[in-house]
């Protein structure tokens, strides 16, 4: 369980996050949605200790993550930010094996190789495992990075806009993978996502942020309502029923 308590973040005089209080239970997919500048990515980076809060706490199963030794946290929580990594000439397999670093400190044992093998096959990367990252398409590279954080075998996996730069085909397969990782590998996956329909179709919980504050939190059926979504995005949004999931329509 991750608890965020009275969290504030300010840059100089700008309040990016104001009094965030959250509880995220383990297992399942949690989507954080909201307009640009709502503070979604900032919240994710603070929840993963990449940034310090100005005030407040994030607790992982009761422990303050900003006080915890970073290596210990790396065995329980993984974070992948949007792709702006230094594109190095590592092979996919070499990159994925870095996911074992929190456990092995560089000395890979039998157990680590098994995890690497599993992560590669889970993300369908076995055919690409000996290719260099700079020879891959954006979608393939994104999958390789996701394989690295899954290989870390943490209870919590935080992904910042995992669909960024992916076409609809790759976006759908990425979301299916995230769903499978939650269901089959029993991970709790928290994603920041722009597309509210993807959030509604794949997440168990949705957290909506607006202007640095929590606008609402609930299941997709609770959030996918005109009265909830329209004020958040400042846009008339109609909800149309579609198969099992409500669909937001807002294009015209």
């Amino acid at each position, binding site marked *: 369980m991750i608890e965020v308590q009275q969290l504030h973040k300010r840059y100089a005089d700008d309040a990016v996050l104001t009094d965030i209080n959250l509880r995220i239970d383990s297992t399942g997919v949690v989507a954080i949605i909201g307009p640009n500048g709502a503070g979604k990515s900032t919240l994710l980076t603070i929840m993963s200790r990449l940034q310090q809060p100005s005030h407040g706490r994030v607790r992982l199963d009761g422990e303050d993550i900003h006080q915890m030794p970073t290596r210990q946290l790396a065995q329980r929580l993984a974070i992948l930010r949007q792709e702006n*990594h230094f594109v190095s000439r590592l092979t996919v397999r070499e990159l994925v094996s870095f996911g074992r670093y929190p456990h092995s*400190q560089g000395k890979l044992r039998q157990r680590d190789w098994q995890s690497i093998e599993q992560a590669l096959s889970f993300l369908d990367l076995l055919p690409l495992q000996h290719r260099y990252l700079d020879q891959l398409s954006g979608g393939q590279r994104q999958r390789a990075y996701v394989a690295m*954080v899954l290989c870390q075998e943490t209870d919590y996996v935080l992904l910042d806009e995992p669909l960024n730069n992916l076409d609809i085909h790759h976006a759908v397969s990425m979301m299916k993978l995230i769903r499978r990782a939650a269901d089959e590998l029993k991970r709790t996956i928290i994603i920041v996502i722009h597309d509210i329909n993807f959030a509604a179709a794949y997440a168990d919980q949705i957290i909506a942020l607006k202007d640095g504050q929590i606008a609402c939190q609930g299941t997709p059926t609770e959030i996918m309502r005109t009265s909830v979504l329209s004020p958040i995005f400042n846009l008339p949004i109609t909800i149309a029923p579609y198969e099992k999931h409500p669909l937001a329509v807002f294009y015209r």
Partner: protein
Amino acid sequence: MTRSRRLAYAALALLLPLLVLLSLAAGGQWLNPLGYWQHDASAQQVLLISRLPRTLSLLIAGAAMSIAGVLMQLLTQNRYVEPATAGTIASASLGLLLTALFWPSSPLLLKMLIASLFALLGSALFIAIIQRLKLLSPLLVPVIGLMLSAVIGALTTFIAVRFELLQALNAWLNGDFSSVLQGRYELLWLTAAIALVIFVVAERFAVAGMGYDVATNLGLNYHATQTLGLALVSVTTAVVVVVVGALPFLGLIVPNLISLAYGDQLRANLPLIALTGAALTMACDILGRVLIAPFEIPVGTLLGVIGALLFLWVLRQTREVAR
């Protein structure tokens, strides 16, 4: 080890001994190093006091500066950064000059320590600048480093001119092994020890090379690792500048050549980077000894020319790979 890496090791295993023999032999007086016992006492002295130390220091300094280059590239997440394009060499020279000015009789070890401290401050300043600027193009990063080096270099030259130390300064600014003698190069072994330390903790630097976010996610204390790396690069650079003078481009070309051929797996690459750097430096130095004999072209000058050409080629290749 992949097959192609084995090929590179085989080539170096042939080339390096050949270069070592040539380096022992070449000079104002050509001597056959294998016939050491047949030489008269004075020739034996030349071999023992001058040629052997020179050859050893070429090996060590070439390897150390190449490894310093790859480390600098990991710490800045930029392929085009090395001690010459990060203000490290310029700061070390400034430190040396100030020591020569205020404490001319200080022992070599102390000179080296002060130069290391300056090198560390200069490269830390460089890293602080590039982190604040958030440059869009990776090619701009070394440009900033060159500008910083130019500013520090201008200050250094100004002081040197005012206090008539220009000649001493030029000796540090351009690598030259002709004055290496027994008793005057042993400090270089420190850089060999540092290279060994880097090899032992290579995995940490490889993780740091993926940037703050990824490294922190993997449980690495990024800033501590960065500071350790900068300190190792600074001491290496300072020692090399004190003993033989600056060796430009080595840290840039050698790691990029190896990366192009074998990728970026750090631990597997480090021995190759060290050996290739040693071979290249030694080849340039031998060339410098024979081209205009009985005079010598300083190795720093030749590395500058050959390095620039090689680097242009590497840039072209990298572009093609990236496409």
